[in-house]
């Protein structure tokens, strides 16, 4: 079998071929290692781990011969470099963690490896997951494998899980982990034409994932089919006593109900997600999505989420406030880089000034200001109250529907450098993904069509808390109807 035929497989297809003995985990790993070497121009990986991949794959093949197969036995994955991996450098794409080699493994990556997954390497991201374009990485921007028709400029893959999106779309791994704080799985999935799912807050353990905004951060899968994300999430999720916000609730077999369809379900269409600036192609795709679901037996109902417009500013207070607190740990004492100063305080300030990039510094300052004496009530507390209102909106909407359908993003992928001068223009990328994050709800993006410029567009499904099964069923219905089979031109 030719190598590109191996890198083109979905996880489910690879699993079948492995089960039938038509391919070995080692062959799969080798095909992906070659693909990664050939696509370094994308800058999708911070650290490639080919030797680890071969060792993992050989161990997997040995387990399979002994009849011990996990749910992801022999499947080669990329791990976002926000997950701490034992013995493998983990940087959060920040200069301050350059060279940091954890002595422990994050719960989610440990779960994946326990299920038999093979690690290809650590994927690039926005620094500390703060960004929507993967341009804030200390290791440089990631290129989206897609190009706009008639325009050869390199495009952003979205962010913060930009390396994950580019690697999955570019056939450099069969699936990847991402993390989503305000859209960091769904937006890059939409920009790269792949599937990305953020589960309910508390479904996946945050232990060992470098913290950005603890009340919002959730890990989730990115892959090339809805089924693949469902089976990856099944392996990633689960109660973990090491994360106090991990929820002790059974993890259903998401794959088992995937094909149950949407007949008899009500799909809510939130009026407030129709923005003045929504381009016609995205509006048309949304209408098409509604029609697909109606054809599949679902009943569209209009719903209202009246506090939608307040979600983004609330998010951009809460997330930096939590980040400024979380990032206080980078002091040049316990791990990471240190810049010596005149005294201890000066050492802290110099270390942090040199180690953090511009966007991270900006968010630390905003967060520190919002939490400082005299401003806490006006900013942070106000934002947390607005968050309650946003969450209530969803609760009311779910009284009259089973899931929501919206566009994932207000635009398709933009060029590298195009929006980097204006923080607020960049923040607006997340306007349709942030509300579900604030409410902690499961939400995912499915590639559903191409924009006028020939770039992938995603539709977003939002479901009730801990109802990922309905989310996956609806996403599968969209996937079947859309039959999205466009792919980026290979480039080296």
């Amino acid at each position, binding site marked *: 079998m030719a190598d590109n035929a191996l890198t083109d497989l979905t996880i489910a297809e690879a699993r079948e071929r492995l089960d039938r003995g038509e391919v070995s985990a080692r062959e799969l790993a080798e095909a992906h290692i070659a693909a990664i070497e050939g696509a370094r121009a994308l800058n999708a990986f911070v650290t490639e781990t080919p030797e680890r991949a071969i060792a993992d794959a050989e161990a997997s093949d040995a387990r399979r011969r002994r009849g011990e197969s996990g749910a992801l036995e022999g499947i080669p994955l990329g791990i976002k470099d926000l997950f701490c991996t034992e013995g493998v450098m983990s940087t959060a794409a920040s200069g301050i963690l350059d060279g940091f080699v954890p*002595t422990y493994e994050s719960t989610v990556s440990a779960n994946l490896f326990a299920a038999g997954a093979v690690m290809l390497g650590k994927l690039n991201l926005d620094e500390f997951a703060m960004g929507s374009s993967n341009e804030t990485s200390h290791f440089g921007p990631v290129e989206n494998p897609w190009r706009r028709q008639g325009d050869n400029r390199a495009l952003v893959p979205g962010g913060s899980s930009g390396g994950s999106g580019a690697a999955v779309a570019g056939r450099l791994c069969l699936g990847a982990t991402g993390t989503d704080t305000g859209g960091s799985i769904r937006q890059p999935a939409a920009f790269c034409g792949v599937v990305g799912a953020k589960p309910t807050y508390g479904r996946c353990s945050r232990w060992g994932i470098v913290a950005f905004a603890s009340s919002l951060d959730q890990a989730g899968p990115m892959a090339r089919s809805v089924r693949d994300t469902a089976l990856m999430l099944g392996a990633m999720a689960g109660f973990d006593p090491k994360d106090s916000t991990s929820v002790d609730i059974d993890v259903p077999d998401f794959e088992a109900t995937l094909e149950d369809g949407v007949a008899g379900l009500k799909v809510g269409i939130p009026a407030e997600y129709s923005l003045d600036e929504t381009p016609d192609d995205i509006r048309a795709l949304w209408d098409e999505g509604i029609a697909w679901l109606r054809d599949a037996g679902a009943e569209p109902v209009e719903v209202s989420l009246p506090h939608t417009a307040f979600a983004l500013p609330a998010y*951009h207070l809460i997330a930096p406030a939590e980040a400024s607190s979380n990032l206080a740990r980078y002091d040049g004492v316990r791990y990471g880089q240190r810049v010596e100063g005149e005294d201890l305080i000066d050492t802290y300030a110099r270390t942090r000034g040199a180690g953090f990039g511009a966007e991270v510094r900006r968010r630390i300052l905003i967060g520190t200001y919002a939490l400082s004496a005299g401003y806490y009530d006006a900013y942070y507390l*106000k934002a947390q109250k607005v*968050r309650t209102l946003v969450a209530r909106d969803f609760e009311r909407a779910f009284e009259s529907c089973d899931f929501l359908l919206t566009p994932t993003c207000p635009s398709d992928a933009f060029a590298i450098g195009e929006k980097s001068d204006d923080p607020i223009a960049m923040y607006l990328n997340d306007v349709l993904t942030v509300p579900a994050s604030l409410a902690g709800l499961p939400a995912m993006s499915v590639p559903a069509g191409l924009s006028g410029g020939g770039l992938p567009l995603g539709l977003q499904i939002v479901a009730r*808390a801990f109802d990922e099964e309905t989310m996956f069923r609806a996403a599968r219905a969209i996937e079947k109807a859309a039959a999205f089979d466009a792919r980026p031109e290979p480039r080296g």
Partner: protein
Amino acid sequence: MAVDTDTVRRIAMLARLNVPEDELDGLAGELNKILDWMDLLNGADTDGVAPMTAVKPMPLRQRADAVTEGGIAEDLVANAPEAAGAFFAVPKVIE
């Protein structure tokens, strides 16, 4: 203008973040733009609304007050920029 260069200098100090003098002005402008945008929040009526503290309200779990791990001092200092045996080493604090 809520934030001037003195305020940026002060919050940078609170955040233990070295910001070069010639960047203070630009940062004040950026922070003001972001804070102006956040004033949108004042349009939301939050009278009598409790701040959200958890996605799914649940009591914090308790566990037995017992040692669950330990003896990993070597691991803990493995990434320290400077360590002395099993201790983190920092610049002298007291003269």
